[in-house]
């Protein structure tokens, strides 16, 4: 039994740490980072390279002016905006603020870092929500099919085959065309098109567990079928679910980002990694940072889930 506490493989530990960091980014980040869609000056719609700084002058009439450089002169501020130098008199200026865009801005002048952080929330939340939905659905179907057997088993498994036969993207496109996409609908759509693996896994587990002696023993001492199923078979059958879930979370995050990339994700002003990549495609020649940062974050997250799944598998192997 001492192997139960076997150490996690180093890679899996790092992966877990990385996932924790991304989750922290998604939870804490938006509290610290200003919302990316508050463009204070619509005229500052420029693609800014990572690390560039921008000045904002708050004018007396409440409007904002964005400037590339600014210097104090006798009568006020000399600013350069869009290549032109102009002087704003001191009496007009209410406040001055500078902001550095560490990861640059997109073509609408929005901070890429802020969008990444806020997008992390959308991508992770959708991935997790879809994971919960697909796991619940798959467990339910798998339990029913494995426990009941017979006609119900055949029908449910054929249904799983049928859903599995439709390429997921096509299915999701059809569903989003039928329903108006929102965060909840999207999670249901993605979740309900990816439950088949769980169902097969649970069915196989239940089928083997059903034959085991402890089930027979429970039957002999008079336990009801429902009780055996819910209290004894289900907990045992759930062992491989953790690893499967870790692996699937990565897939679901990828699906969400593919959908957002195609423009079927959460509606526009809300950032998601996939929609950021889609924005980046339009300006691929001039702004590499719009593709590289969300792409790396997305790939890193999915990689971390895959490594975590591998670690879980290793640990479960020791457990057995």
């Amino acid at each position, binding site marked *: 039994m001492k192997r139960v506490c076997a150490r996690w493989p180093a890679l899996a530990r790092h992966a877990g740490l990385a996932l924790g960091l991304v989750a922290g980014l998604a939870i804490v980040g938006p509290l610290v980072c200003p919302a990316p869609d508050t463009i204070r000056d619509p005229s500052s719609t420029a693609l800014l390279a990572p690390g560039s700084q921008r000045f904002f002058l708050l004018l007396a009439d409440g409007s904002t002016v964005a400037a590339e450089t600014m210097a104090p002169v006798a009568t006020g501020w000399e600013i350069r905006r869009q290549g032109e130098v102009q002087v704003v008199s001191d009496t007009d200026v209410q406040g001055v603020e500078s902001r550095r865009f560490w990861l640059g801005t997109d073509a609408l002048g929005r901070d890429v870092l802020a969008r990444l952080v806020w997008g992390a929330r959308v991508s992770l939340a959708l991935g997790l929500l879809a994971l919960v939905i697909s796991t619940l659905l798959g467990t339910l179907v798998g339990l029913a099919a494995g426990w009941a057997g017979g006609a119900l088993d055949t029908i449910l498994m*054929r*249904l799983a*085959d*049928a*859903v*599995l*036969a*439709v*390429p*997921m*993207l*096509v*299915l999701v*496109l*059809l*569903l*989003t*065309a*039928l*329903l108006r996409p929102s965060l909840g609908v999207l999670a249901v759509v993605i979740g309900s098109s990816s439950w088949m693996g769980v169902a097969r896994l649970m069915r196989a587990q239940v089928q083997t567990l059903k034959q085991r002696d402890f089930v027979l023993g429970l039957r002999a001492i008079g336990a009801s079928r429902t009780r055996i199923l819910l209290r004894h078979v289900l907990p045992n059958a759930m062992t491989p679910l953790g690893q499967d879930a870790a692996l699937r979370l*990565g897939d679901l995050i*990828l699906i969400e*980002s*593919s959908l957002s*990339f*195609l*423009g*079927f994700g959460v509606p526009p002003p809300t950032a998601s990694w*996939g929609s950021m*990549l889609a924005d*980046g*495609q339009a300006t*691929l*020649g001039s702004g*590499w940072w719009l*593709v590289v940062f*969300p*792409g790396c974050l*997305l*790939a*890193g997250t*999915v*990689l971390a889930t*895959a*490594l975590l799944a591998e670690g879980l598998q290793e640990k479960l192997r020791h457990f057995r």
Partner: protein
Amino acid sequence: MRSVALRRMAASLVVLWAVATGTYALVSLAPGDAASRITDPRLPAAARERWRRDFGLDRPLRARYLSWLAATVRGDMGISWQHRRPVRALLAEALPPTALLTGLGLLTETLGGLAIATWQAMRPRSRVDRALTITSLLAYAMPSFAVGMGLVWVFSYALGWLPASHMLSPTAAASGWARLGDGALHLVLPVATIGLTGMGALARYTRGSLLEEQSQGYVLAARARGCSRRRAVLTHALPNAALPLVTVLGLSLPVLVSGSLLVEVVFAWPGMGQLLLQAALARDIPLLMGGTLVGAAAVVLGNLLADVSVSLLDPRVRP
């Protein structure tokens, strides 16, 4: 042998029927019917009623379903709302480019994955092996559209070697070798994208099964007889490890099709991906239903081929 093939075929037909029925049920049970989807909301109620009657929408669901199924079996999938042309003709136009792209992508993926895995299995736990393991995991984790954009950035924008999108240049010759060459150049980046993203998972799987085979008695016996590691892997372990790969490839088909649809969108490839994306944007239900059926048929057919070829190749599963 023949009875197995027939049984599998019957099962495939059942799956296809289930897909068709499920799709129809989804579309007809979703809120709002065809009348409210296509007609202008300002249309007077009486005119809409007449429209519904003209198109048979007032008939009971079962009658509508049966006539739809009969038409679908005959290959008539209705008229696209967006293009005002038969869905069948639209799909028939879009299918060949997609089949070309997906087929070549599958080929690249398989050959590349096998080569990497064999390379790794010949020197297990070496530095190269470890580096390639991480690389294939990374390839699995990268979204295909991001890989595609990366390749475009490097090879089209930075180096200017390869075209970034479409199937042919607008200035391509009308026919002959020049046209073929132009087409081939346009194929390189999308095929590489599909191949690279698929390779990772395949290489990981094959490496695992190659290493497993290598600890089997027959490989150890071959090694003990003085067979080199290279030879043992290539001629003894590989054929046995490659066999389950056929099934794995068959099962990975839905992912492959979805992936190539995405890649098509990145590269403005005139295939099913673009067609279905436009259909989804325009809420063109008949076209989407047709696309779902064709996609499912491709997957089912691929699985069937994989099953039959496994039973042809492997004497153990032959009844």
